[in-house]
């Protein structure tokens, strides 16, 4: 029997559960090596060579090379790991959040200053159907 997931109907959200963690394990283990300066330097010197040191899927490696932040999440990455790659590139959490939610930095910052993304209309996937 599959694990019942009562959070599957939340829109625009990946819940990093055991299934995602299993899927993203090597991607996340790669990301955490960028926490320390030695890892960041080695990665910057030869990105794809560095990635070949990890048994990640080709799609995961490509998502890293492309800095496709949402694709990394889809492939089991967790934001606290992928943000280490962000930090390696000098990208803050807020800048990542803007990119992942499809806003410009200015739009996102303005949205947060105006009180953030509202909960109304953002609770259920059904509320997003037909939305651009």
């Amino acid at each position: 029997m599959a694990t019942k997931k009562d959070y599957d109907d939340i829109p625009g959200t990946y819940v990093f559960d055991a299934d995602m963690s299993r899927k993203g394990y090597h991607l996340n283990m790669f990301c955490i090596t960028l926490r320390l300066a030695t890892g960041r330097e080695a990665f910057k010197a030869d990105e794809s060579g560095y990635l070949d040191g990890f048994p990640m899927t080709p799609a995961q490696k490509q998502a890293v090379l492309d800095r496709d932040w949402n694709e990394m999440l889809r492939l089991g990455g967790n934001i606290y790991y992928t943000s280490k790659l962000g930090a390696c590139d000098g990208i803050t959490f807020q800048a990542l959040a803007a990119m992942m939610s499809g806003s410009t930095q200015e739009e996102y910052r303005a949205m947060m200053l105006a009180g953030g993304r509202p909960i109304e209309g953002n609770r259920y996937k059904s509320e997003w159907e037909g939305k651009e």
Partner: protein
Amino acid sequence: MARITAGVGVSHVPAIGVAMDTGITDQPYWKPVFDGFKKSREWIKENNPDVVFLVYNDHCTAFSAEMIPTFALGCAAEFQPADEGWGPRPVPVVKGHQKLASHIAQSVILDEFDLTIMNKMEVDHGLTVPLSVMYDQPEEWPCLVIPLCVNVVQYPAPTGNRCYNLGKAIRRAIESYDEDLNVVIFGTGGMSHQLQFERAGLINPKWDKEFLDMMTSDPVKASQIPHVEYLREAGSEGIELVMWHVMRGALDEDVVEVHRHYHVPASNTAVGHIILENRPK
């Protein structure tokens, strides 16, 4: 005997630490955040705890995906601030109270809470930002710190109920320790925020304020909030708030709210803060 006199709930937004470390707390963006901490800093000076029992989560810093303990108690003599990718924060080394920490470990494990014991652990912004919020920028932290690291990154986090009851066990442990110590417990993280994917930036002030109200007046009800409600209403990272129940469980059911602060935004997050005191016996 050691005693828990008060609890502090506080967000641990990394950008709050960065704002302090780079000296920009007077800027219009940050001023309202830090204005709300003025009273907290006076309060902690006045209250002057010997030990802070600090409940926080690691953000894939000390713990990689290799090992994910649900509850990990810091029993080391000291804890180094970690490099999270931007270099370590320029804050003092965190000193532990080893004898009390090992007493707590022994007591709560026999009380059927199976903690992981950490004799070496770096600490990230989850632990250092709350200390900065409360103590500003001292040369040395004025208190000893016992860290309790809770997994809230890989779903499921422990339930609110479990956290609340662990708080009670921690209180029993502290109050059976034979040294005259004033202990304040911090529950950190939250409030509403989502850092990832298309719903990033979610903030729910109505829900947050109800949560703060319940912290003061109905902690048992708060401890029963199901995980899906945090995820849906407070955002995927809002589930950090389960850690506040450990703090709340360690206090009397009837407490005095001495301070509250709520502000949106700090980076991606709603900042929530509350100070609760046990009534004098």
